[in-house]
């Protein structure tokens, strides 16, 4: 099957990592551990939300994405600016200012993701209307949200709106139009997304809901932002009219933007990974009633809060509102876009039970029993000194063979105290002047060796020890 299933674009810059516990404490899926003084991210647990990038004080968590030079790999390139790109600039009166600057930067054409977003809004409205009884639906635009549901909320997978994300629809239309315009082969055309987040970088490589994405490369808003500035002309008479999105499309960049295009009254729009985790728990428990649609963005403020953006997310949201204010509601309609064959997902997204302890129920039951016993031995401080975020996760790691009880500094201390008591006891007997019997010497050597091993093993994962 898909070997890139757990691909991630949030990576560790090992040289910068100080081995502190900030990232492990902030990771919403408990996907990070610190061992041997360095953090490491567990692929299958990571949902690419980028929260660790924000919280690492040493900037050791980085996002990977493509450099702008990828445009040299193609005969013809189309830039797909995310609507959050517009929100980075001050006093923007028209998106044409940004779109014209993108052409000057070296792209051959542009296609706004916000234009495709209006098509997604239209398709979503239709879908919701015809599937009314299956509500509430959960937005599928944020790849981190889909990945979170995929590993943690199997019961909610069927609630995901099975409609392609705006960027995917944009890529499909942009390639079809470029081929028609230039006569070039599909592989000669580069569809380059200008992204607010690393999650979309992973999406382009391993999409969910479809087999292969039409996006060729993903560059970062923060890279493109300063490069566009010298090319931005505010004199509208000098601009080629390229802009083709209305209020709905531009609004998608901020929290509440997607629901704004749905014309539904009973909705919930949640943003920020910790908040949406709570919403998903409540949805799963059926504690939220009467909802038609649930919009969820992993980043605070929506896409404008992505880790590859520059502007403060709240200011960006205000700028988006100002920019969209005098636009018509929507400028794009499905009937005018025959290029797009289907707005729907081709594949289901399957549950990935990555947090399951064992391979079978019986094995998991036995392992959980061990987890419970181990957790009871730990002090419950969730101090993170062992490299796992909580005492419970340390216990799970031990049962999975990835850590040892001595990784807990309190367990280690009590073992050392115990051994040193025994040594003290053995040596105190000798005060009368008798020489130590041979069996006591053997015991003493055993205790000292245990003590050395215990101290040496702290913080070294079981797997690594087996290697040595």
């Amino acid at each position, binding site marked *: 099957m898909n070997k890139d299933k757990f691909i991630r674009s949030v990576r560790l810059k090992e040289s910068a990592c100080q081995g502190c516990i900030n990232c492990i404490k902030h990771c919403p899926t408990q996907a990070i551990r610190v061992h041997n003084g360095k953090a490491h991210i567990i692929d299958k647990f990571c949902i690419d939300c980028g929260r660790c990038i924000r919280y690492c004080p040493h900037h050791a968590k980085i996002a990977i994405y493509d450099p702008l030079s990828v445009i040299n790999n193609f005969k013809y390139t189309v830039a797909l600016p995310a609507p959050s790109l517009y929100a980075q600039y001050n006093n923007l009166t028209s998106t044409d200012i940004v779109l014209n600057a993108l052409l000057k930067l070296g792209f051959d054409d542009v296609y706004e993701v916000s234009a495709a977003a209006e098509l997604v809004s239209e398709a979503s409205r239709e879908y919701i209307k015809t599937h009314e009884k299956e509500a509430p639906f959960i937005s599928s635009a944020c790849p981190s949200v889909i990945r979170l549901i995929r590993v*943690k909320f*199997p*019961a909610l997978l069927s609630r995901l709106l099975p409609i392609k994300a705006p960027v995917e629809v944009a890529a499909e239309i942009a390639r079809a139009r470029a081929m028609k315009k230039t006569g070039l082969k599909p592989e000669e055309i580069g569809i380059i997304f200008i992204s607010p987040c690393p999650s979309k970088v992973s999406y382009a490589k391993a999409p969910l809901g479809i087999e292969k994405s039409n996006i060729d490369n993903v560059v970062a808003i923060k890279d493109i932002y300063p490069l566009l500035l010298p090319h931005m002309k505010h004199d509208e008479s000098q601009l080629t009219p390229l802009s083709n999105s209305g209020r709905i499309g531009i609004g998608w960049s901020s929290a509440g933007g997607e629901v704004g295009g749905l014309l539904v009254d009973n909705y919930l729009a949640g943003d920020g990974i910790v908040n949406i985790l709570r919403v998903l*728990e409540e949805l*799963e*428990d*059926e*504690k939220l009633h009467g909802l038609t649609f649930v919009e969820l963005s992993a980043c605070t403020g929506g896409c404008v809060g992505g880790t590859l953006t520059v502007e403060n997310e709240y200011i960006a949201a205000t700028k988006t509102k100002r920019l969209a204010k005098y636009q018509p509601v929507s400028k794009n309609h499905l009937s005018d876009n025959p290029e797009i064959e289907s707005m729907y997902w081709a594949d289901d997204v399957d*549950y990935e*039970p990555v*947090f*399951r*302890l*064992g391979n*079978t*129920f*019986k094995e*998991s*039951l*036995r392992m*959980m*029993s061990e987890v*419970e016993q181990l957790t009871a031995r730990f002090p419950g401080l969730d101090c993170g000194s062992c490299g796992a975020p909580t005492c419970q996760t340390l216990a*799970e790691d031990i049962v999975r063979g990835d850590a040892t009880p001595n990784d807990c500094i309190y367990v280690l201390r009590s073992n050392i105290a115990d051994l040193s008591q025994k040594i003290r006891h053995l040596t105190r007997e000798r005060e009368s002047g008798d020489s130590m019997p041979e069996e006591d010497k053997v015991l003493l050597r055993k205790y000292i060796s245990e003590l050395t091993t215990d101290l040496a093993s702290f913080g070294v994962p079981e797997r690594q020890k087996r290697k040595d």
Partner: protein
Amino acid sequence: MGDQLIFTYDIDGSDFTRAGEASSSVKNKLKMLGVNSEIIRRVAIAMYEGEINMVIHADGGQITVTVSDDDIVMVLADRGPGIPDIGKAMQEGYSTARPEVRSLGFGAGMGLPNMKRYTDQMEIDTVVGKGTTITMKVAF
């Protein structure tokens, strides 16, 4: 008899906002065990309803959940007022919840009926003035 796991929870009767913590904890443990998500859903809903009842009517109590090879058994024990008429209490829409509780969205009279609907077996052992113990079973 095979392996089994026992989880116990003390339910605080004084705080509405905390009701549901125990069922949420059980739900997450069942996910780690790889239990089928429909079964998890049934257990979580039945237990949540029971938890809410303990908070509304009985000032809390204790829940013991036993997971074994074949089933999940939840025992909800309280020292509340007891149920004088089980027949009435099992009717959908019948509730003895106080008005202030209803104003919070609880007391729709669906608690016990839902607990029965979502489980394979339910027994109510109640003594007026002494308390209630409800045992629910969901088979794998």
